[in-house]
């Protein structure tokens, strides 16, 4: 991939790189850039560092805004060619640049972050300097935030690759120079990875390569720019789930041998009072409508994709009243596995197939909201752990059908 570069300080090497991927973030990039600089000055003033904005050739002046932030740390602006979009494509440029700079530790933080502090830089970077290869973030999140992570990405990644990484697509991560090289050399790359699939792609590559992985507690919740949640969810869902299914095909010989899962250690304690995240409101009526409406529309496709036994159970779920609605986690896991198999078999257009999973996801989310309504954060975490255990138990179903 070719990229456009502005390197006003002529930086040729750096031990630590902080990458900030962006597209049209002129109004928000100041804050994460400033905090990244403060973190580098406070914790790593004795190490050569650089902040890189990897951009999608934004037309709102993101590059100028970034280079205009007064920092002690030198900065580089790197952009995809005109018309090339996607966070993944930005990060691919970051991987290339980090390898070229011979960086030991690369930290990635989102350009629209509102809650980043200098401590995030230390908490993400320190484990890499302490010889870990990949650092995933651990934030305190509201129970209704990140439904795709809670319902699919975490349980599926865990059951497939055997490692419990609670936020496998958290966005703010760190990795070693060696892993950056591996990212560059990994041949598997799709349009979806080039977009929102990149976060789950990085975590999966790290797990698949048996790199040493750790989670880092960030202390503050992740607060960022508010987007149109529905359209963002649909786009993100398709990129993430397609990438997970593609990687399942790519790494089938690995996950076939994985049984149950192992924990991942956590770095970053003693942060004082932990700030709680703002509440996320869920409209259960709308979730129900999206579930039922989508189910009716796609039922014929489901009849071909979902096994008879699971389809019968789904029919039972559809008949449940909104109050007291429940979508069993074991059924959800098996339906995901049925979709993955159909995706592998090319039974349908793959985009159409993944989009048809969205209404069922709404149903699972509705069930999650109903069941966890009275629970505190700790109880919800235990609930999610139980859900993950269902994915692990149902793994034999996947293996049997996938390799039949």
């Amino acid at each position: 991939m070719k990229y456009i570069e502005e390197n006003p300080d002529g930086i040729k090497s750096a031990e630590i790189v902080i990458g900030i991927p962006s597209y049209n973030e002129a109004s928000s990039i100041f804050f994460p850039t400033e905090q990244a600089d403060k973190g580098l000055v406070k914790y790593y003033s004795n190490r050569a560092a650089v902040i890189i904005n990897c951009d999608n050739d934004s037309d709102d002046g993101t590059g100028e805004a970034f280079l205009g932030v007064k920092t002690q740390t030198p900065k580089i602006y790197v952009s995809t060619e005109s018309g090339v979009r996607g966070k993944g494509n930005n990060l691919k440029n970051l991987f290339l640049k980090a390898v070229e700079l011979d960086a030991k530790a690369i930290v990635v933080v989102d350009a629209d972050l509102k809650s980043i502090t200098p401590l995030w830089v230390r908490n993400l970077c320190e484990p890499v300097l302490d010889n870990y290869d990949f650092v995933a973030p651990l934030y305190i999140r509201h129970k209704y935030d990140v439904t795709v992570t809670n319902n699919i990405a975490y349980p599926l990644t865990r059951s497939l690759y055997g490692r419990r990484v609670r936020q496998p697509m958290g966005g703010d991560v760190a990795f070693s120079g060696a892993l950056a090289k591996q990212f560059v050399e990994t041949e598997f790359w799709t349009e979806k990875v080039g977009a929102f699939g990149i976060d789950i792609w990085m975590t999966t590559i790290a797990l698949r390569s048996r790199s040493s992985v750790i989670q880092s507690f960030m202390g503050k919740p992740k607060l960022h720019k508010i987007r149109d949640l529905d359209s963002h969810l649909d786009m993100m869902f398709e990129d993430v789930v397609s990438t997970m299914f593609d990687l399942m095909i790519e790494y089938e010989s690995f996950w076939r041998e994985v049984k149950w899962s192992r924990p991942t250690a956590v770095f970053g304690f003693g942060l004082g009072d932990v700030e709680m995240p703002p509440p996320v409101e869920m409209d259960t009526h709308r979730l129900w409508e999206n579930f039922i409406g989508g189910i009716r529309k796609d039922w014929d496709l489901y009849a071909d994709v979902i096994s008879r036994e699971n389809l019968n159970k789904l029919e039972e779920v559809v008949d449940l009243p909104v109050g007291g609605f429940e979508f069993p986690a074991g059924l959800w896991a098996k339906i995901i596995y049925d979709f993955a198999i159909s995706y592998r078999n090319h039974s349908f257009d793959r985009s159409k197939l993944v989009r048809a999973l969205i209404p069922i996801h709404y149903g699972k989310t509705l069930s999650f909201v109903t069941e966890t309504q009275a629970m505190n954060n700790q109880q919800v975490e235990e609930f999610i752990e139980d859900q993950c255990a269902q994915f692990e138990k149902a793994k034999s179903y996947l293996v049997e059908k996938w390799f039949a």
Partner: protein
Amino acid sequence: MAKILIVDDEEGIRMLYSMELQDEGYAVITLPDGKGLMEVIEQEQPDCIILDIKMREYNGLDLLQQIRKKYYDLPVILNSAYSSFKVDLKTVAADYYVVKSSDLTELKEKIKLALECSIPK
């Protein structure tokens, strides 16, 4: 035969667990607290550790942090009379958390899962 290391400051617990787990076919070694834990792990190479949290002079969660620094993949099951420690994020580094009970069914089940767990190299 899988080897289980029990770290607990209650003698009664160590005896009960030893008997029950030996009956299940495991080899069992015990420690009354965290003193010399890393050396014992090094020498005995246990397949799984059952680790109490609230011990008189040691905190099992801190011991878990030490274990994880050196032994990335060694199964550790936290075993406490208190469920309240579950809110501590340090527990995330354990394979499982089991609240103490006179019925060891859950503990035995988690030991089995931890020992069966496999991830290709």
